[in-house]
């Protein structure tokens, strides 16, 4: 059995920052505040923290532990890891899903990352002058090509195409340098930079006061009140609990196939419990302490609750429609606009790098190709996928379809399977024994019951409530309409791409002998 590890982390802090970088993304600064405001303000945090303790941390620790164990058995990609830690060959097919998720997300995440870079560039060069919601929306539509397929493909800096190329090259430059010299080095610089920039913007936002004294109700204080004043009645709403659990789940990047790959580069006596907790808490810090006080309060200080509600509380509305208006109205708006979107770009690139590594490890594990050749294959596959999303930009249909099915079906399924493997197949006693090897802190004993019973039950209920929701034929959601009721060509193509990706991975897996020979 091979235990040779060719690349790996240099320091514990390096792997923690890389995992935290994978987790910190647009969701922390844009999606989280929208959810808090929508679901009961401060009351949402009750459900949010409970979900963190009951879902986020258990899966996180399970993934770190299983990843490290798989790595010690000679595997760095999910199929090999699942096969080796369970000793059952058919579990390697679970690894196919663990590869489809990061690669599938990368196809569209690269495009969103490029929007952030495009906004940062246009603020830096003073090319964004939006005075009304219509102008902000029009800039976004032109940049993303939301009105017509293929319209974003142009070399103008008002279109996203050129920024996609730059982001693509950035990603592959760092990924080609390897784990320690590429991902670790980049995240070790990017994460502290992210912290500094976000604190500068936060201070600016919190000192905005009442920008227009003639409208005293439009103030930062009222913005914070809009987000945080609790409505405990909302806790009776099951959707709030589902939204809190989903946010924790997606925000921490669990069930993503990334942590398990990153952890496979650790050594036997490297701590996983403290490292997992540190990476998770770093994500929570960016989400709650910074994201929770930044975008929505700023928007309300300028447009009031009514104005923001008209624009909308979705991730893209807050980020790309509301905030450009805030920067336009703010003194030194171009500077803060540049800093904010550069912050989002950095957060996005630390995440997108993590999406490439699992597939790279798989190509290397299965084909034994050189690093350079494996990078070329990965570049070809991911560029094709990203181009599909970039070209099919009308109504962001391809992006939206991929996002919906990967997040709601594949990620929840993978996380459920992982926690069941950890708590039931490996066994909670053996699993936690593995987790505590080299650990700097102990997992409290009551987590035995949580990991074995509570987390799987909660995940299964999330999965079932989602399935129940989509099969509610009296009120089908848009994604079901796109596939079965009024079939949409792009939506079906997006699903087709995911299926082709899964079949290709399965085909390569079956051709390769390396997953059984180690």
């Amino acid at each position, binding site marked *: 059995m091979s235990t040779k590890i060719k690349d790996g982390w240099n*320091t514990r802090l390096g792997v923690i920052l890389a995992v935290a970088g994978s987790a910190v993304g647009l969701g922390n600064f844009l999606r989280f505040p929208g959810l808090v405001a929508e679901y009961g303000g401060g009351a949402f945090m009750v459900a949010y923290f409970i979900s963190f303790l009951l879902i986020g941390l258990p899966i996180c620790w399970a993934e770190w532990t299983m990843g490290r164990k798989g790595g010690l058995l000679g595997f760095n990609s999910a199929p090999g890891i699942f096969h080796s830690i369970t000793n059952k060959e058919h579990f390697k097919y679970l690894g196919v899903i663990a590869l489809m998720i990061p690669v599938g997300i990368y196809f569209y995440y690269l495009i969103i990352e490029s929007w952030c870079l495009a906004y940062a560039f246009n603020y830096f060069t003073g090319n964004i002058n939006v005075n009304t919601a219509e102008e902000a929306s029009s800039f976004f539509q032109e940049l993303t090509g939301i009105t017509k397929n293929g319209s974003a493909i142009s070399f103008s800096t008002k279109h996203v195409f050129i920024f996609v190329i730059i982001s693509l090259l950035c990603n592959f430059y760092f990924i080609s340098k390897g784990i320690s010299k590429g991902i670790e080095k980049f995240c070790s610089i990017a994460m502290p930079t992210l912290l500094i920039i976000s604190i500068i913007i936060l201070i600016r936002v919190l000192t905005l006061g009442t920008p227009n004294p003639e409208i005293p109700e439009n103030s930062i204080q009222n913005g914070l009140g809009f987000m945080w004043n*609790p409505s405990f009645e909302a806790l009776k709403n099951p959707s709030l609990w589902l939204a809190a659990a989903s946010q924790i789940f997606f925000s921490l990047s669990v069930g993503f196939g990334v942590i398990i790959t990153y952890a496979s580069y650790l050594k036997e006596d490297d701590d996983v419990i*403290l490292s997992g907790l540190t990476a998770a808490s770093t994500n929570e810090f960016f989400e709650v302490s910074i994201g929770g006080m930044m975008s929505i309060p700023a928007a309300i200080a300028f447009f009031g609750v009514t104005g923001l509600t008209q624009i909308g509380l979705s991730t893209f509305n807050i980020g790309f429609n509301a905030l450009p208006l805030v920067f336009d109205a703010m003194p030194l708006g171009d500077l803060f606009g540049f800093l904010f979107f550069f912050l989002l770009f950095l957060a996005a690139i630390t995440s997108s790098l993590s999406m490439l590594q699992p597939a790279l490890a798989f190509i290397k594990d299965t084909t034994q190709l050189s690093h350079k050749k494996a990078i070329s294959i990965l570049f070809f596959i991911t560029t094709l996928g990203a181009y599909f999303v970039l070209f099919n930009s009308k109504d962001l249909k391809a992006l939206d379809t991929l996002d919906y099915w990967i997040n709601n079906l594949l990620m929840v399924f993978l996380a459920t399977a992982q926690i069941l493997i950890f708590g039931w197949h490996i066994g909670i006693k053996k699993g936690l024994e593995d987790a505590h090897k080299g650990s700097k802190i102990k997992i409290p004993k009551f987590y035995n019951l949580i990991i074995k019973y509570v987390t799987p039950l909660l995940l299964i209920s999330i999965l079932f409530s989602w399935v129940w929701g989509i099969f509610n034929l009296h009120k089908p959601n848009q994604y079901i309409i796109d596939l079965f009721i009024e079939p949409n060509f792009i939506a079906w193509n997006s699903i087709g791409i995911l299926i082709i990706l899964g079949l290709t991975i399965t085909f390569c897996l079956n051709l390769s002998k390396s997953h059984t020979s180690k």
Partner: protein
Amino acid sequence: MNTLGFILLSVSVFAVSALTAYCYYKVLTSNDPKIDEEKD
């Protein structure tokens, strides 16, 4: 912003900041041997 909102905001921010600070304190003060010492 009402008092309850302020309390929830403060408690949430304090809780995650304290947890993060504690974790980094533990990470930085415990031994951190170079992970790649024994690599090929």
